[in-house]
């Protein structure tokens, strides 16, 4: 590096600084024409029931309360064995959209947008344990520690807005099981880590100084720091990393200015705010749209509370009511702004639920246990076959039987829609070429438009 370019790094402003700091962010892709530029992943933590949401099973009405015995063996979880009985869905279903899909009647607003949605019933998870299944869905590996889908997307596509992180997570009030490893950068460079924007407290950690520190004071301290660093840099001209580190301070302060603008909902139209509703899920969905608009590549919205082993009517009922308006609003709003064409929206849990239940609560507290062989999932926007149902589960909803694909194919498909080829999107780590799907997978062609 020449002296003059180094001086530019230290003294210059604007993009040059960010470019150095984020040199690790140079994009690997796209590998082919992308159908979507961004992704909003609505993660329903706890395992929502497909049977009680988008895949009704009338056969369970006649089987309701039929008891049977499932032998306890080492290949079954204790939870899923012993005396079992079938459980019908306590919910009413309504036909919606041109395709006439039957969905839970509580989805009042969402029923109006199903023609933009591709419902996929062929997906299968592998684990019936929350954290391993969450890690699997988020990172492709049941062990924590690998990069999340958002991190791979950021690595593959790079950043659009250099002042904002390219992978943002909007967690629920509590961190999910397995914690921050669900949005880890894993072995990818740290810039690809998901940045959680907390629902309480400062949205980005330490983005603002402790109370009482004025911007003026901060600027003076920063100027002194720059002077000390600049002197030091002159003693070590060979070391470009030093300049990059100086640049991150300036970048951080631009982010400090940019982020509050994105998070400020006060400029939204009243009808938009009303459409999302004033609940916390509505706020997260609206923020997701704003973040995508501002150039964030991958936004994950987490909604917890779907683990309804008991009292599914209450529990799922409340959850469905809570998400109905916000998710419908998100799709409508994206469509209104034209963003839906270039944004892939995904809705999924970490697994589905069983048609049967254990005998807890004397058979009164109807609920459902975990099920990895069938699960609810839908996609909308960029590149998916809107207004279609793809795949099918068996008559009780125990297993996916048509267009069946494992999670890794789901990942390959989502990357594919984002213009990334899983087999090319690789990273050499510890002497091994690693990829999202671990060992490769195939695109689920049936869901593509």
């Amino acid at each position, binding site marked *: 590096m020449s002296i003059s370019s180094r001086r530019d790094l230290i003294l210059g402003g604007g993009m040059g600084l960010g470019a150095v700091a984020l040199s690790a962010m140079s994009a690997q892709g796209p590998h082919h024409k992308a159908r979507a530029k961004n992704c909003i992943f609505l993660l329903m933590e706890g395992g929502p029931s497909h049977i009680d949401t988008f895949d009704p099973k009338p056969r369970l009405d006649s089987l309701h309360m039929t008891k049977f015995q499932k032998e306890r063996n080492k290949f079954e979880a204790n939870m899923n064995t012993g005396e079992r009985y079938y459980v019908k869905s306590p919910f009413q279903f309504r036909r919606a959209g041109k395709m006439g899909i039957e969905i839970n009647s509580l989805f009042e607003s969402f029923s109006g947008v199903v023609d933009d949605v591709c419902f996929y019933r062929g997906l299968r998870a592998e684990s019936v344990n929350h954290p391993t299944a969450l890690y699997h869905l988020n990172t492709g590996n049941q062990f*924590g520690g690998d990069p999340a889908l958002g991190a791979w997307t950021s690595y593959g596509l790079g950043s659009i807005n250099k002042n904002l992180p390219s992978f943002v997570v909007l967690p629920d*009030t509590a961190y999910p099981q397995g*914690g921050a490893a669900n949005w880890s950068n894993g072995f990818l460079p740290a810039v690809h880590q998901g940045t959680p924007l907390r629902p309480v407290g400062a949205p980005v950690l330490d983005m603002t100084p402790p109370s009482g520190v004025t911007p003026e004071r901060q600027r003076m301290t920063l100027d002194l720091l720059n002077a000390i660093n600049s002197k030091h840099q002159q003693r070590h001209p060979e070391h470009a990393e030093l300049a990059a580190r100086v640049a991150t301070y300036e970048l*951080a302060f631009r982010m400090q200015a940019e982020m509050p603008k994105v998070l400020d909902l006060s400029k939204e139209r009243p009808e938009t705010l009303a459409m999302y509703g004033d609940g916390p899920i509505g706020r997260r969905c609206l923020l997701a749209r704003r973040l995508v608009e501002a150039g964030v590549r991958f936004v994950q919205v987490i909604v917890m509370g779907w683990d309804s082993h008991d009292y599914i009517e209450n529990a799922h009922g409340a959850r469905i009511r809570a998400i109905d308006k916000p998710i419908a609003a998100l799709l409508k709003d994206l469509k209104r702004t034209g963003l839906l064409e270039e944004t892939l929206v995904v809705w999924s849990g970490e697994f589905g639920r069983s048609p049967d239940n254990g005998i807890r609560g004397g058979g009164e507290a109807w609920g459902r246990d975990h099920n990895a062989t069938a699960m609810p999932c839908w996609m909308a926007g960029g590149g998916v076959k809107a207004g279609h149902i793809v795949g099918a589960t068996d008559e009780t909803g125990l297993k996916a039987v048509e267009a069946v694909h494992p999670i890794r194919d789901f990942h390959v498909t989502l990357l594919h829609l984002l213009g990334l080829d899983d087999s090319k999107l690789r990273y050499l780590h510890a*002497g*091994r*070429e690693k990829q999202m799907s671990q060992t490769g997978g195939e695109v689920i062609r049936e869901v593509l438009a």
Partner: protein
Amino acid sequence: MAKVWFTLLLLARVASAQELLKECLGCHGETMALSKLDLRTRESMLRGGTRGAAVIPGKAAESLLLRMIEAKDGVQMPPGDASKRLPPETVNAIRVWIDAGAPWKESKADTWTKYKPEDLWAFRPLPSLDKSKTVDAFVKSGSVADRRTLIRRVTIDLTGLPPTPEEIDAFVKDKAKDAWPKLIDRLLASPRYGERWGRHWLDVVRYADTSGYSNDFERPNAWRYRDYVIRAFNQDKPYDQFIREQIAGDELDAGSSEARIATGFLRMGPWEHTGMSVEAVTRQMFLDDVTHSTAATFLGLTLGCARCHDHKFDPLPTKDYYRMQAVFSSTEFVRPALPFLPGENVAGLTAAKAHMQGVAGQAKSRMEELRGKKDPDIFEEFKLYQKHTAHYKEALDRFEPKAFAVASGPIDGATDGGPNLRYAKVAAYKAPDVFVLPGGNIQAPAEKVTPGLLTLLDYAAPPVTEAIAGRRSALANWIANERNPLTARVMVNRIWQYHFGEGIAADTNNFGKMGKKPSNPALLDWLAGSFIDSGWSVKAMHRTILLSAFYQRADFTPRRVEAEVLRDSILAVTGELSLDAGGPGVYPQINEDVARQAQHRMGSLAPAYRASPAKRDRNRRSIYTFQQRSLIDPMLEVFNAPSLDMSCERRDTATVPTQAFTLFNGQFAHDMALALAAKLDRQPVRAAFQRVLGRLPDAAEEKAAQATLEKLTKMHAATPAPPRPAAKPVVHTITSELTGEQHRFTHQEDPAAFEHNLHPSQTTPAVRALADIVLALLNSNEFIYVY
């Protein structure tokens, strides 16, 4: 005549093309055919794979095979960076061969990757040791660094803390010839050495105080393993003994508490068994984890790759994987009572236990009060305290003299693993059979295997017993063996990496074909030989390396310090570091928002994070902080502290903007800057430079800092510091699984019990202004880089 020559040449090319393509068969052959491409025959190459035909005879430039090899379309084969490319003469041979129509001599193609000798470097026996040599016989180095640079370099390297101004001064003035070796001896004798180098080892073994997954329950006695590691480094325990104790301490030296604590190594991976887990899966996850981690830690092998299929690149068949796994099939989890050792820190345990019992008792009595009530709000609260009670039940065991360990077969009364496991009966115990599991599928076992070692390194080691006990001893003795070519190489390479930032072989956990080749194999071999010759002394290896001119050279590659070194250094230079060593993990001051963040635990929430009330505890070195898998100190995390779930062979040092937030805006940095400012009275600017950077400012720096200080002092005088905010209650919200509604819990700590850091409102404008100067110094490149 020319034609004859051409034909001869071509035939030679044919042979070499066929030969060269064999390298690709691991992935594009019988076993794998990635991208549906099979390179074993001419037909299959013409047919090609998912990307189309691989070879178009006569048209090399259009043939995908050549384009991939030359990385023409943005994809490179073999994959990796430019260093993985085939050599130009090979590429040329393939080009000539395709252009000549791709002629093919029929022969039975190999179905297995042919190993090139250079890929098997790590498996070769070590050459005999030339004792007359030194490190400098293998490497060149220019001028020697100045003494100030040297003492900072080696002090941070060996202790993880910067030298004090007094130490710097003494070394700079010490003109004796043996000043350098004396300095090294002093640092190696410091208890801080084991804390620094123990941390490196804990990175590799993924040390944590919790089990991860849904409940992330505490491993209440794991800290004794952490302290064992620190002691081992401080005592310079011979590395072969260190290996034997960690793999089979219980078998080899059953009478030694130390050796039994060491076996905690085998249980370091994340692990959980709940009512929703499948028992055979949980057990298999442990067996896979321990097989892989033992091989990676001690042998630098990616043996886990052979779980589903024969290793694609290294000579490690799946059968070997399961034979080694069978060594662990009789390994059972135990938490036996083992009295505390004289060297263990048990100070304050009684008081801490009484305190936690108080908190646990409150949770339990609240739970009992709420039991049986139907109201959904109350039931959620009941579940919360039920979860907290389960949490404390585990956590309270940290004060008990037990060990987080294993045994060969179960032990009455000491089995470990929670209520959901079906324990084997001691009397009827039989080591479970192990089968090869093709594709890693536990439901489709194939051939049964007996315990064994890697076929490749079969240097006449005695066979592994099939009895319940003794399997791990056999493995340990085979690894901790001077005839094992990997063991010493892997360890000296790790040591080299921590001294220089990069190993001689850069992938310290992967000595196979896909790992980077050693940049200086002769040096690596010589170091390995010296290591064995010294009786596996790690401290002797440090001396060998540190006394070299190569280590003392001026053009040393600068490095950013690791997260823990940064935190510990901030505490040290501000005079806030507590040097208490050992004992159960302490809770440092972490970002307040993260501390207050609710954390989901299966069905409810974890208790709120509580920083240790006493400064003396929370300001201890980072290695003694409680390592919770689901909650890593965000300050350490942002400075690239690794996930606690995977072995970390080498720290990432990427620079990201959020590091600036943490160090410039974070409460910890502000508090520590103020703490130092309040301690400096005379010539505060000069003193601040000396304390933080170990040197005085030059004239220009002093002038700039002094001017800033004066302006800031005026500013602070004009705006008084706001008072310390009153302690706010912790509010946690959870969405109920039973009602789908949100429930809110509020928790108020007793603020009187907490020993606060100094607050700006307790200081003068001059001190607060000086704190801003200190903050700038703590953020400077000079402070966080080592040269």
